[in-house]
């Protein structure tokens, strides 16, 4: 039996020469024995192989277009079994690769392994480094989330400042003047096709040149020579295992911190996925990956066109040029020292700049706010994607744009927040007197039309405060007078409460639904009070509209309801609302016959009103 196997092996070798090939691959002499300092190259090859494998499987689930990129990555992260692990491995191994590159470069420079006859080996290494950085840059955009989108926009606009070829390069890479489908198809082709093919080509060349010149042993040799197999292979394998362990730990890091009861692993493990890219909504916290932060910080020191070219292109080019010249500079001992000092100064400089960038951001309130905002949106879009409507074919960006909780809030901050205070608005009115810290203008709208809000309005102690009519002409108006009147002050507390409860029930607020349903009796008596004794209907309508109605105060029919708010915001000067008593509130949709002229569309008004009423989709609690 063994004879047959032997013969078979011999025949196979005769026809293919595999024994020689395996021998060539494994029996490389390692002068002075296997050492840990030789493992970096192998760990890089390992990291690249991990990227090839995980990347190939990610490819099977990825769809590069503006409507499907984020969506397919979302599906991979949150729905595909183990998708978060696959993404996490790919994402964190990419980061590990940059660290390993730096270590490999340091080891080669310190050991002087770039010297003759290994110049070409060193140069191919530098090219490989550029390719890996190119892979990082292109990969950052592919999930098409806010962070990748806005950060990569900065990177490609920098490419545009390169004299002569810059604008063409920029346009070809972006696939036009603006980011869109073709940016993704092109970046994906670069990331998964062109750059890996180049990397494999140069890697083969790099390893060939390395084998041709033999391993550059660190002198003095400490032990007898060994072969690559098995001593060095074992050390390399252990190092690769360590790299993999670190990457796995990074992928699962939040799990070690605990406190994620009941959540699916995709929601807190693996690589981050922000909210889908939305060109209409600036992401003010756009930052590149941490290993490019030093370049980002560096650019802040260059002012104006010429300096920017120097900072973004000339200096990085010169640094790479210096690296390319290292084999020649390092011929003398002094030159070698110079190379080492140069490399360490560069790394120290990059580390300092990175630290500066992080420190500056940590102290910037706007930046921290933008980050928190981005996290809120990233979580919200996942809730919506998993909601009853799912992700529509138009893509997930429309989920947020049509979400009252997100877009209504945005609309409020853009159109209302300069006058109205709202606790949940990201923008707040500028105080007139910075020391007083009181908002100016219109009533606060936090919890508008709820029982609490109305209790405040109908309270003589509060109606003239800045939270209600304090900064408007209504402070001197009839409503204020009514609330301050002795008759109202003499009203019994339970009756006032009934009025409040009944009026608030008009709004049919989702948050008060249960409360309203259980308060049927008080609502009934309250309604009777409003319509009669309380005297509200002297000025306000309340389910008693007449023709030629000359009552001038806003109608109380459906007060605070969706329809009431839509009408009020559309045109506060309408006779149903404030009429000629309107104080400064702009008309947002005063052209029902010519909607083109309205500032806010019907759809936008709906989102704004739903947000004010706290009426948006929330998943049912388990």
């Amino acid at each position, binding site marked *: 039996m063994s004879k047959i196997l032997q013969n078979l092996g011999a025949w196979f070798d005769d026809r293919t020469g595999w024994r020689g090939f395996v021998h060539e691959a494994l029996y490389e002499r390692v002068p002075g024995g296997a050492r840990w300092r030789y493992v970096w190259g192998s760990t890089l090859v390992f990291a690249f192989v991990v990227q090839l494998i995980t990347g190939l499987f990610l490819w099977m689930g990825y769809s590069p277009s503006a409507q499907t990129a984020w969506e397919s990555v979302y599906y991979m992260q949150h729905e595909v079994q183990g998708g978060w692990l696959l993404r996490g491995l790919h994402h964190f191994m990419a980061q590990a690769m940059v660290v390993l590159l730096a270590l490999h470069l340091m080891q080669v420079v310190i050991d002087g392994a770039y010297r003759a006859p290994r110049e070409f080996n060193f140069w191919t290494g530098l090219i490989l480094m550029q390719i890996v950085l190119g892979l990082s840059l292109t990969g950052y955009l592919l999930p098409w989330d806010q962070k990748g989108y*806005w950060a990569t*926009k900065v990177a490609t*606009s*920098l490419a545009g400042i390169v004299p002569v070829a810059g604008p*063409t390069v920029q346009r070809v890479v972006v696939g036009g003047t*603006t980011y869109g489908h073709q940016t993704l198809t092109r970046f994906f082709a670069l990331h998964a096709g062109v750059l890996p093919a180049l990397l494999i080509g140069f890697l083969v060349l790099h390893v060939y040149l390395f084998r041709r010149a033999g391993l550059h042993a660190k002198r003095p040799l400490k032990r007898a020579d060994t072969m690559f197999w098995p001593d060095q292979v074992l050390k390399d394998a252990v190092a690769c295992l360590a790299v993999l362990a670190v990457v796995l730990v990074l992928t699962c890091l939040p799990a070690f911190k605990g406190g994620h009861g009941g959540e699916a692993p995709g929601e807190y493990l693996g690589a981050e996925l922000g909210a889908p890219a939305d060109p209409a909504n*600036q992401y003010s916290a756009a930052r590149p990956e941490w290993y490019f932060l030093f370049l980002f910080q560096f650019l802040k020191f260059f002012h*104006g066109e010429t300096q920017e070219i120097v900072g973004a292109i000339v200096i990085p080019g010169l640094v790479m040029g210096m690296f390319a010249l290292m084999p020649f500079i390092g011929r003398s001992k002094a030159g070698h020292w110079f190379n080492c000092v140069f490399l360490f100064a560069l790394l120290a400089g990059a580390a300092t700049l990175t630290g500066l960038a992080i420190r500056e951001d940590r102290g910037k309130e706007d930046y921290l706010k933008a980050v928190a905002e981005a996290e809120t949106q990233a979580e919200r879009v996942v809730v919506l994607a998993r909601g009853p409507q799912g992700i529509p074919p138009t893509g997930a960006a429309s989920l947020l744009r049509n979400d009252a909780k997100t877009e209504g809030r945005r609309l409020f901050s853009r159109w209302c927040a*300069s006058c109205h205070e709202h606790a949940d608005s990201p923008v707040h009115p500028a105080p007139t007197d910075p020391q007083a810290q009181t908002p100016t203008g219109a009533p606060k709208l936090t919890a508008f039309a709820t029982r609490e809000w109305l209790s405040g309005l109908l309270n003589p102690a509060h109606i003239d405060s800045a939270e209600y009519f304090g900064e408007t002409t209504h402070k001197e108006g009839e409503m204020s007078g009514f609330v301050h009147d002795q008759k109202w002050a003499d009203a019994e507390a339970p009756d006032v409460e009934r009025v409040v409860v009944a009026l608030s029930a008009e709004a049919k607020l989702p948050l008060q639904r249960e409360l309203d349903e259980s308060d049927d009796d008080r609502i009934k008596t309250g309604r009777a009070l409003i319509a009669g004794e309380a005297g509200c209907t002297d000025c306000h309508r309340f389910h008693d509209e007449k023709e030629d109605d000359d009552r001038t105060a806003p109608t109380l029919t459906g007060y605070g309801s969706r329809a009431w708010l839509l009408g009020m915001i559309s045109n506060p000067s309408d006779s149903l609302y404030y009429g000629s008593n309107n104080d400064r509130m*702009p008309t947002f949709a005063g052209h029902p016959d010519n909607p083109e002229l309205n500032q806010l569309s019907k759809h936008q008004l709906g989102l704004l009103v739903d947000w004010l009423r706290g009426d948006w989709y929330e998943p049912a609690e388990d």
Partner: protein
Amino acid sequence: MAKHTDKAAGGEVPAPADGQRRGFLTKLVAIVVGGIVSVVPAAAGLVAFFDPVRRKSGQGGFIRVATLDSLAGESPQFFQVIADKQDAWNLYPKEPLGGVYLRKTAAGDVECLNATCPHAGCNVDFVPEKSVFKCPCHNSSFEADGTRIDPEHCPSPRDLDTLEVDQDQLKQTGEILVQYRNFRTGLAKKVPDE
């Protein structure tokens, strides 16, 4: 066991018997034919690849952004520019193309600034408390009228880009029509990105 290849077995290729001239021609033809077969597919690819360079962005028309009565005070206010947007094979109706800041001047005119920072293309934020524009990326800052606050030490090579407002339409109907255009970033001169 001896290596069993034709080369090892001494299967010599016969030496060329023809003259040098013929050899030169053969080489030349081989290079030309080889060149053609590899250039054609690459050229076909490159032609399509460079298509975006030839394509015009189609920007420059006047787009209605707001009405005069929507501008309160003299502080710049942010508005989205909404129009049909063509992205390769898709036409998105009424899609936000970008953002502008509109400002009523003391003289009653309307000034329009493109919200894109001329440095590296981030959107600038208006800070009402200080009445300045701040870029969240590399800290360029601008006055409310768009001029750089400290041109010597501002990363941006030029002031915020002003956009033309249709003054006739403004006077006639109070509608603010803006010629929305983007300009190349990083240059001291304002060059339309077309």
